[in-house]
């Protein structure tokens, strides 16, 4: 059974039709690459799955059950974690504070509950080590490089054990070494039965870790193919419109 099923999703922002009748499904342990030109609607689709936007029409089903997300927290409770394209970090807080933002760990002293710095530093340190990132839990995000910020944003998804991880251009603006790390992480997520949707403009990344690739063009899905049955050239043609649909 599909983990996630999108059925005829449409999204309009006033006169702009960002998405038109997009249907998509993904199975557990599968990695789907989502590609398309700037403004094709990739981020909009991610945000609908993550509960930021409600679709203008269409249905979302998780494990066969129809869901209606009103807030990001609803999606998270259904096992969906997202790394946003603009990362969504608080510059004035430490890496650990950002990782645990909104789900801080607390300790109790009688009736008083207070932030458990020690465990949060320790746990985020472990996640950064797992991601092979040099990010230090106590450092302020303001002072971080693009790659370190990315690591913080990705680390947020590792707090829970999500069924589906959405990544909106996680490899934009980071170094080659860190790209390799992110791709390794995606493979590890797949191996442990997690599904991943990877939005990327980078052809090698998608062909490296994804099982399938879907292409959006001006809000419609023009292709959905197994990686083994397509080539970078074909996908490029689909993105630019040189190839109509496949």
């Amino acid at each position, binding site marked *: 059974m599909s983990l996630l099923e999108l059925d005829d999703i449409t999204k309009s922002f006033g006169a702009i039709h960002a998405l038109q009748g997009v249907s998509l499904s993904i199975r557990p342990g599968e990695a789907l690459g989502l590609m398309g030109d700037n403004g094709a609607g990739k981020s909009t689709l991610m945000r609908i799955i993550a509960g930021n936007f409600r679709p203008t029409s269409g249905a979302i089903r998780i494990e066969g059950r129809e869901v209606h997300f009103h807030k990001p927290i609803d999606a998270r409770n259904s096992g969906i974690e997202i790394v946003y394209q603009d990362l969504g970090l*608080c510059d004035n*807080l430490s890496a650990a504070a950002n990782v645990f933002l*909104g789900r801080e760990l607390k300790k109790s002293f009688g009736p008083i509950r207070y932030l458990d710095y020690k465990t949060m530093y320790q746990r985020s340190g472990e996640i950064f080590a797992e991601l092979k990132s040099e990010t*230090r839990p106590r450092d302020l995000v303001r*002072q971080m*490089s693009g790659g370190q910020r990315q690591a913080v944003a990705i680390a947020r998804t590792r707090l829970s054990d999500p069924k589906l991880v959405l990544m909106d251009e996680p490899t934009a*603006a*980071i*170094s*080659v070494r860190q790209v390799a790390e992110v791709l390794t992480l995606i493979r590890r997520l797949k191996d442990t039965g997690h599904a991943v949707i990877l939005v990327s403009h980078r052809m090698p990344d998608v062909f490296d870790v994804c099982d399938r690739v879907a292409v959006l063009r001006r809000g419609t899905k023009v292709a959905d193919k197994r990686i083994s049955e397509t080539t970078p050239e074909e996908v490029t043609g689909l993105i630019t419109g040189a190839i109509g649909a496949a």
Partner: protein
Amino acid sequence: MSDMTNQDGRVRPGQGPLGHAEIDESITSRTETSGWQAIVRTQPFWVLMAILVIGLVMTFVSDVFLTERNLFNTTRNFAFFGIMALGMSAVICTAGIDLSVGSLMGLAGVVTGLVMQAGYGIVPGFLACMGVCVLVGLINGVLIAYLRMAPFVVTLGMLAMARSVSMVISNNKMIYDFGPDTELYLWLGGESVLGIPNPVWVLIILTAVFGWVWRYSTWGRWVIAIGGNAKAARLAGIPVERILVSVYVLSAVTAGLAAFLLVGWFGSVTNALGTGYELNVIAATVIGGANLMGGVVYALGAPIGAALMELIRNSLLLAGIDALWQQFFVGLFLIIAVLLEQIRNRGKSD
């Protein structure tokens, strides 16, 4: 984007004008700053230094300065501003502003006076005072958080309305009879315990509480997060609107607390209580290190900022300078504080 390899074989993205060695260096120099070093970097620390220097100079200028009487009065005077600055810090941390606190003092003071004058005693008087403040804070907060109105406009409107209501309900008369609990009330506002004025005790306790709240409570963490990036906070599932409302309620409540104590000290109240105080409170908060862009808060900044302002007032007085110069120096220090903050920030960003 072009990626380049540096000497140790590792790859980093090309980052404009900075060389790789410099980037590496700046990354390694970003070790966690802890303890003493972190304190030295904060604005409250430097303001405290300024206070000590001015204090030192004043001991030579005037032999009255260090007398117990003068220190007692000075600390008590700044306690009221300090208490309000604690609440204002929370508002400013969310990149908001609360201009209504001065007028609210008038309203809260008059309400307290009326309730106690009617013979209800100090507890109902205090509860009425707090009740009015919670209500005003809720109105401010709901308009700002849920209707997305600009904090400046909402609280400016409230400034006018609260003052007007206090004029109406006080019938423009002074209240100096506080019923059966008059003696207790005057003691609360005007006397001291262990040589420290009661309002100062309140300030000390509240500062400690806020110090804890900013560091250890989820609420504090969320207020700071909202000030840093409200969008990110919302995406992380933080109830941004509710937190914003709570921040304005808090500011109103600290104004009410200051009014309650101030009336007890004066032994009387008119509807003019707290006129213009909002400027001093905001100045104290900003001098204490708050950033109007939000995301920065120090519990100690509130009393330290308020202390500097009172010290300026006291010093001018003792040095025989016309009291009319007072606001000039308050304004001067405010501008200097913001200027220093800006210079430090410019140094930080690449």
